[in-house]
């Protein structure tokens, strides 16, 4: 298994949609074959359409707000002593997280496909919030599927969705989190695929959804590439790009432009959700060597029992609380281009405390997992190593959890 050069990673799959011959694919009911195929043809056409790309860039620049800033975290660097810690504050994007890129592109596609309705899933509520924002902007009716447990713990984002005129459909099956929301959303699409466009909220799901999402979030690394060059005059010799990984949309977007660099120069580190310290449950299939299985239409490393039933996950961060992971990350793991590790709930909370104490930055619990790894790594490394953390979400949505766990927000 090898990554090929000069071809975007999202296109390095075989005719059945598998990356590395075994990750991804299209495990969908017959009814969805046609809508998936239609979407595939449309997307391949649109990404080559200069007008469409121009339109995307227009909205990214003027509505999402691009580029998001790239800054050095001086006090944190000083406090830890060692590698330089930088961050790209992707949470500055309209709505407060990277999910806006995928949502915007899906709405633009839905418009071109002549669909009036758009549905999506959400865990932390960011994918839902952004989809509701974009749907409002582009005049589409929007339904968001969300686990009942997540609705409770991510109330601020639910309020935002309602304000944007979206209908939130609570999902009470299974663990009542993201995994169930995605299932329910897909079931809804099976019933309504003639009138409705589906937006999968991350780089997961059937092949085409992985591709569209990866294509959209890659905006992050396109910006970062230019910003690094501007800041350092060149691409430095030692860079580590740290990003949390749930479904894997922000990390893929954060890394894509640097894919062809040698990993000794630009290393990718993905940080999964290790769950509570004392719990056996986690949301880290890559770190803990979960087996390949089929989830939501794609083959991937996924937490499951020996029978093939998907296991429940546990994490303080709703956005990372997913038993599977993008086929793209499985591919990056097996080709050894990226390295994956996990941070526990407690480590993420401690990282949040330290970062907010040192810096004028308010990362949500998801990127706090990545900061936890930065805090571990930095003191062991020399000053000329550049650690860059993607601060992909804002903690406003986590205020209830933070108040409960830390007594303050």
């Amino acid at each position, binding site marked *: 298994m090898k990554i090929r050069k000069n071809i975007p990673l999202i296109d390095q799959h075989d005719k059945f949609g598998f990356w590395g011959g075994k990750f991804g694919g299209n*495990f*969908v*009911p017959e*009814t969805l*074959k046609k809508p998936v195929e239609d979407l595939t043809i449309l997307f391949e056409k649109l990404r080559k359409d200069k007008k469409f790309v121009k339109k995307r860039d227009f909205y990214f620049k003027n509505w999402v707000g691009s580029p998001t800033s790239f800054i050095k975290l001086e006090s944190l660097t000083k406090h830890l002593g060692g590698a330089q810690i930088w961050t790209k504050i992707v949470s500055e994007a309209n709505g407060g997280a990277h999910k806006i890129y995928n949502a915007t592109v899906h709405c633009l596609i839905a418009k071109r496909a002549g669909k009036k309705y758009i549905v999506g899933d959400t865990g932390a509520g960011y994918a839902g919030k952004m989809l509701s924002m974009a749907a409002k902007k582009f005049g589409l009716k929007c339904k968001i599927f969300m686990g009942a447990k997540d609705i409770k713990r991510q109330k601020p984002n639910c309020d935002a969705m309602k304000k944007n005129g979206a209908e939130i459909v609570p999902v009470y099956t299974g663990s009542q989190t993201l995994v169930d929301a995605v299932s329910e959303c897909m*079931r809804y699409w099976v019933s309504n695929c003639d009138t409705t466009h589906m937006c999968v909220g991350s780089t997961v799901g059937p092949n085409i959804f992985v591709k569209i999402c990866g294509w959209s979030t890659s905006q992050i690394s396109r910006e970062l590439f230019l910003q690094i060059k501007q800041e350092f005059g060149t691409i430095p010799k030692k860079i580590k790009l740290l990003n949390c990984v749930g479904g894997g949309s922000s990390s893929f977007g954060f890394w894509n432009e640097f894919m062809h660099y040698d990993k000794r120069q630009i290393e990718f580190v993905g940080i999964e959700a290790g769950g509570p310290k004392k719990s056996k449950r986690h949301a880290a299939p890559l770190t803990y060597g979960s087996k390949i299985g089929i989830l*939501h239409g794609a083959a991937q490393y996924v937490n499951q029992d020996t029978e*093939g039933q998907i296991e429940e996950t546990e994490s303080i961060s709703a956005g990372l609380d997913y038993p599977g992971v993008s086929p793209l990350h499985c591919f990056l793991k097996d080709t050894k281009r990226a390295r994956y590790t996990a941070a526990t709930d407690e480590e993420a909370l401690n990282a949040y405390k330290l970062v907010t104490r040192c810096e004028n930055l308010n990362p949500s619990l998801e990127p706090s997992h990545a900061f936890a790894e930065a805090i571990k790594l930095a003191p062991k490394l020399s000053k000329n190593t550049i650690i860059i953390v993607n601060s992909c979400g804002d903690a406003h949505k986590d205020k209830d959890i933070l108040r409960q766990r830390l007594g303050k927000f």
Partner: protein
Amino acid sequence: MTISPISLAFRSCKKEKRPALLTYTVAGDNTKRKSLEILNSISNHADIVELGFPHNTPIADGGQIQTSAYRAIQKGIAMKDVFQIVHKFKKSKKSKPLILMGYYNMIYQYGENNFLKKCKKVGVNGLIVVDLPWPENKTFANKCKKNSVIFVQLLSPTTSKKRMKRIINDSHDMIYYISMLGTTGSKLKLSPREILKNYNKVKKIDKNKNCVLGFGITNKSIGSFKNSDGVVVGSEICKEITRSLTNRQNPVTNVSKMVEKLKIKIL
């Protein structure tokens, strides 16, 4: 090669000028023993029985079947239990055709070859895998054939004519037409007449293929599909099991009565 009991069942229904009645229940719902009893008693009326092996992230099942699957998984149903239920069922009803239905991950984890070996051993006659569409299923379907298991290809209203032709060409003795865009057990969105019109388009491609109709078929609508090769009732039965359990009644007798009534409607 001997003729599959599935084909024989269709043949004898055709002689009686009626569609075959196919039922769907979930293995282990609400216990292993009860689901075997249900299977035994409904098979007195049904021509072919479908038995679901439950999965906890089903992307094409409606509420009723999800509820049944959830009950079974809660009680700890495993693949080995599913095979045991089939084995016991087949001991008393050797010639009654049985089709297993479920999601691919369960087969993938069991190992395709092991799974089929076991199917053959306990007497499974057919297999429906909801999330393994054509052409991805070609290799697996061939393996099924080698193990005397009919791989049932699915067709839906969204399947283009060109695609239908190719799928039917690769299909075995039985195909399954999904009546409408929806999960199992949703309300019929089309009138039975419209469904039959679509169904006849499929039959026109190859009239010799046994084609059953399923998704959303109830006691009310089943009578309208007398001219098809077969009708599948699933969610309606699962719903009856749920109702019986809520009312503390015996699901075996209730479901059996229900299937008997369904049968009368298509005679």
